[in-house]
């Protein structure tokens, strides 16, 4: 997030939520937004699902899955055409305004209405509200990113914020609500194939920092990205996979492919707190201490480093993850892993990335209830609002507005990118992007298939399903397939019957729940339940060209009613695949 999440409550005049089911996925952020609304802030919600926040919104626009760019380009075009831009901000701080003007010029309200059925009046209201308000804040989550054009979606949002100058001040900014407690931290700590805490592995600074602090030559070649891993395993490029604190056998798209690929590895090491679905196919499983059993830090969505105290002694004398890894390193006689406590590690991070973390000490975050990076020295107050000086991280300090188009397929995408480069004389090193759908319903698979979370569970449920108040208290629905009423009618489904959803990637079965909040032609399910994992059907063959993200939110599928007998048989077979270890069978007689 460029800003702090509390600003929703205290500063924002307009909260622009797109592709986020905030009240289910981030209830406390939703609470802060409600506080803002009580103060008088207006709430705009754009989503394929009529979420609980949508029902409270001042304006709710229901759009089909994956129609973000068409909508955002139309809003941007309307803002430009109606002179709602912040001209001073654009002139002083931005590149590329002419490019975007050209890219969006055909995105009219009429065209949008024809293509996705969006009410032009509502789109106008959204554009005016967002552009005119003193402080407008954008909030988004996976409904923006988990597409083949996820990066283009995000750049569209940044375009919107830049042309209206809604950035760098309290209550503005572009705010991805992080889905996991330490996404920000894991990225900042360098758990990325192209990044160490000191920056991109290709930069001189990172290279020299690695030499000084790690006393090692940093490989300048970025590594494999996660979504390519099953492919690389099959090609023989990866022989050993070490997974820690993650359950990719359930969380990766097209899970069957991942599980299949893992059998071709020479070694699969899994380090976790439970015998997860991934651990069950591992060669070596290493247990580790869990949350509250170890001291350390998390980085929350507002880039705030927060301290976690150790509250209980680890079960069975287990050691924290970092210690297990250090033990391995020491046995391999690798220097630089002699940490005796978590704070020592953090202090090395501060040395490696002084501009970002230099001033953030354990002592300070405990006393000051967290500090937001960048915080270069002990006297620096931290940076809750980024770009407050309206300067970007680029060498000339200016922001780039990226021209973004929309195409029907990859071929057209390339055509658009080449044409706009030529037409506007865009230099080769200037980014250009284009959105496109990754799947269009067919006769065989006539429904849109999308996934999401439920408030009472978390991801693959490894932790939350062990908690009675969540599993038996709040979750009274269990695994289910939610369908829009039109699908229910055409497929003769009723709430409570069993159904099978399938596409070329996989199949899943569960009880049906007819959900009138879903947009026409859509099936929704979660990835919390091993017995009905929506990620099985996710498309892993397509990727965002920049981030490598698979379109988890956009697949196509067919659905049909099945009998209780078929349902049981399927579940038993399914269990064989997910739980090969006898200890963890979940179905009797399997």
């Amino acid at each position, binding site marked *: 997030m460029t800003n702090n999440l509390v600003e929703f409550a205290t500063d924002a005049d307009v909260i622009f939520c797109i592709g986020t089911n905030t009240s289910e996925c981030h209830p406390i952020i939703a609470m802060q937004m409600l506080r803002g609304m009580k103060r008088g802030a207006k709430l705009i919600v754009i989503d394929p699902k009529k979420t609980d926040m949508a029902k409270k919104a001042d304006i709710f626009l229901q759009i089909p899955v994956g129609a973000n760019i068409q909508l955002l380009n139309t809003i941007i075009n309307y803002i430009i055409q109606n002179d709602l831009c912040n001209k001073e901000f654009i002139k002083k701080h931005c590149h590329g305004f002419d490019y975007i003007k050209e890219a969006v010029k055909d995105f009219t309200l009429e065209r949008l209405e024809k293509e996705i059925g969006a009410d032009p009046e509502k789109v106008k209201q959204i554009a005016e509200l967002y552009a005119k308000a003193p402080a407008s804040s954008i909030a988004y989550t996976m409904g923006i990113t988990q597409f083949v054009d996820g990066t283009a979606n995000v750049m569209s949002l940044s375009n919107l914020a830049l042309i209206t100058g809604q950035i760098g001040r309290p209550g503005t900014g572009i705010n991805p609500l992080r889905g996991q*407690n330490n996404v920000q931290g894991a990225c900042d700590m*360098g758990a990325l194939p192209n990044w160490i805490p000191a920056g991109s592995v290709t930069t001189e600074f990172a290279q020299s920092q690695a030499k000084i602090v790690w006393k090692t030559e940093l490989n300048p070649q970025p590594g494999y990205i996660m979504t390519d891993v099953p492919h690389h395993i099959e090609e023989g490029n990866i022989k050993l996979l070490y997974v820690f604190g*993650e359950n990719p056998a359930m969380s990766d798209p097209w899970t069957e492919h991942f599980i299949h690929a893992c059998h071709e590895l020479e070694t699969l090491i899994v380090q976790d707190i439970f*015998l997860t679905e991934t651990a069950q196919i591992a060669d070596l499983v290493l247990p580790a201490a869990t949350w509250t059993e170890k001291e350390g830090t998390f980085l929350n969505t507002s880039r705030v480093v927060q301290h976690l105290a150790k509250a*209980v002694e680890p079960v069975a004398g287990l050691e924290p993850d970092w210690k297990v890894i250090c033990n391995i390193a020491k046995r391999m006689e690798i220097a630089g892993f002699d940490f005796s406590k978590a704070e020592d590690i953090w202090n090395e991070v501060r040395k490696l990335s002084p501009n970002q973390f230099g001033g953030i000490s354990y002592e300070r975050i405990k006393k000051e209830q967290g500090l937001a990076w960048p915080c270069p020295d002990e006297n620096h107050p931290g940076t809750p609002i980024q770009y407050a000086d309206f300067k970007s991280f680029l060498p000339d300090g200016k922001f780039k507005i990226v021209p973004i188009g929309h195409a029907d397929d990859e071929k057209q995408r390339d055509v658009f990118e080449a044409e706009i480069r030529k037409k506007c004389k865009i230099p080769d090193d200037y980014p250009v992007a284009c959105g496109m759908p990754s799947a269009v319903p067919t006769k065989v698979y006539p429904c849109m298939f999308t996934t999401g979370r439920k408030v009472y569970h978390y991801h693959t449920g490894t932790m939350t399903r062990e908690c009675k108040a969540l599993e038996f208290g709040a979750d009274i629905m269990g695994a289910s397939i939610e369908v829009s009423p039109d699908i229910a009618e055409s497929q003769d489904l009723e709430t409570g019957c069993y159904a099978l959803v399938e596409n070329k990637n996989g199949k899943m079965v569960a009880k049906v729940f007819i959900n009138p909040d879903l947009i026409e032609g859509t099936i929704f399910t979660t990835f919390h339940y091993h017995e009905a994992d929506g990620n099985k059907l996710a498309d892993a063959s397509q990727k965002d060209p920049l981030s490598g993200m698979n379109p988890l939110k956009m697949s196509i599928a067919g659905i049909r009613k099945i009998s209780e007998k078929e349902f049981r048989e399927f579940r038993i077979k399914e269990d064989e695949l997910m739980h090969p270890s006898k200890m963890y069978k979940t179905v009797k007689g399997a």
Partner: protein
Amino acid sequence: MKKFQTVCPYCGTGCNIDIFVENNKIVKAEPTKKHPVNDGELCLKGMYGWEYVHSPRRLTKPLLRKKNGVFSKEGKLEEVSWDEAYEFATDRIKATVKNYSPNHIMGFSSARCLNEDNYVFQKLFRVLGTNNVDHCARL
């Protein structure tokens, strides 16, 4: 009953939680009062999502896939000593690096673990000479 301030392990909001401990067992969780992030409120996962810490199904010993007492792909996961587990892990990593290249190993780190855990994990891979580290945030 002792009180410890910690941060919720679920979504990215970063709510602060006061954990109350008795006899080395968590007995309840309460929102940290007047904290800038969550201001004395919590959702259900923060308030009740700690029970897994004391689950009897937690892993407590390393497991190695074995058949007839030795490692085998066709074997079943069996409890082994930490010594044996570490030896297996280090041998396999070393052998892969030696027989193929550092780029033939890959690590999945975790957005659910500490900064310190992530840092050490990626450092190990980098020091071994590869940038093959990624984590679930990409998804």
